[in-house]
C-alpha cells in the first residue's frame, strides 16, 4: 500500500524519545523496536561498535489519523551528526480543542520556542512547539 510517514533522527536517544511519544499519543509501537544488533550481517558492512549495537535501527508509532512517525539513531561511528533545523514541522489536526490542548501541553513539556495556542484568522485553534527532542509540532484544530 502506498503511504507517507514522517521519519525522525535522534543522536542516540530514539528509544527514550519514542517512549515519550508513545505516552503522549497513547498508542503502541507498530512492531517491536528493531535494534542495530538485530540486523543480519551483510557483505561489505562493518560490524557495529559495541556501544551502538543497542541503538535503534527502526521504530514506528502511529500518531493521528493513521499517520506514523518512525525513528532511528544517528551513528557517530558513521560520522552522523544531528542538526536541528526549522525547515520542517509536523502538523497535527486533532478532533477537539481539549485533545489539542492535551497534546500541546504534553509535547511542550521541557520544550522551547513555543507559540501558545490561540484562535487564528483562518479559523483554526493554532500553536507551535519545539519539543525536548528537537522536533517541531504545529497544531491546527478547526472545531469550535
Amino acid at each position, binding site marked *: *500500500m*502506498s503511504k507517507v510517514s514522517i521519519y*525522525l533522527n535522534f543522536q542516540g536517544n530514539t528509544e527514550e524519545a519514542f517512549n515519550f511519544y508513545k505516552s503522549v499519543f497513547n498508542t503502541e509501537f507498530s512492531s517491536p523496536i528493531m535494534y542495530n544488533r538485530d540486523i543480519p550481517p551483510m557483505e561489505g558492512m562493518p560490524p557495529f561498535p559495541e556501544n551502538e549495537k543497542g541503538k535503534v535501527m527502526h521504530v514506528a508509532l502511529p500518531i493521528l489519523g493513521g499517520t506514523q512517525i518512525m525513528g532511528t539513531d544517528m551513528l557517530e561511528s558513521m560520522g552522523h551528526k544531528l*542538526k*536541528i*533545523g*526549522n525547515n520542517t514541522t509536523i502538523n497535527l489536526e486533532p478532533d477537539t480543542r481539549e485533545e489539542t490542548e492535551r497534546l500541546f501541553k504534553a509535547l511542550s513539556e521541557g520544550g522551547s520556542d513555543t507559540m501558545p495556542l490561540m484562535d487564528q484568522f483562518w479559523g483554526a485553534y493554532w500553536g507551535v512547539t519545539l519539543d525536548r527532542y528537537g*522536533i517541531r509540532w504545529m497544531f491546527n484544530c478547526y472545531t469550535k
Partner: protein
Amino acid sequence: MNFYKRCLGGKLIFQTVGESDNSGKMPAKMKDCILHAELRNEKLLIMATDMVSEGGLIKGNSVSLMLNCHSEKEIRECYQKLSQGGEQTHPLKLTFRNAIFGGLTDKYGNRWMLNYQDKDH
C-alpha cells in the same frame, strides 16, 4: 511546491500575503510572498510558507518524509524526479528485508526516504 507537484502529483494551491485578510499589516514588498501553500494528493498533504521566523531558515537533518511506494516503477520515478538537482545520499538498492530503499536530499534541502516492499510488513 511546483517542483514537488511535478514529482508527486496532486492539487496545489497558494495564498499570497497580499491576498490575506491581514495584508494591510504587512510590508508592501512582502505582498507576493506565499503565506500558505498546500499540495494535496490521495496520500499526503504538504503545507508550506515563505514566512520564516526572525532567526532565518535553518536546514536540519532530524526530519525526513518517508514515501512508501506501491510499485517498483513508482519508486524509481519518484526517486529520479525528487533527486534532480539534489543529492542522492542513498541510491535505491535492495535491502536485507527484500525491500527497495533509498534516501536523498532534494535541491531545496529537504530529506526524503523511499521504500517499496512487495507485500505489506
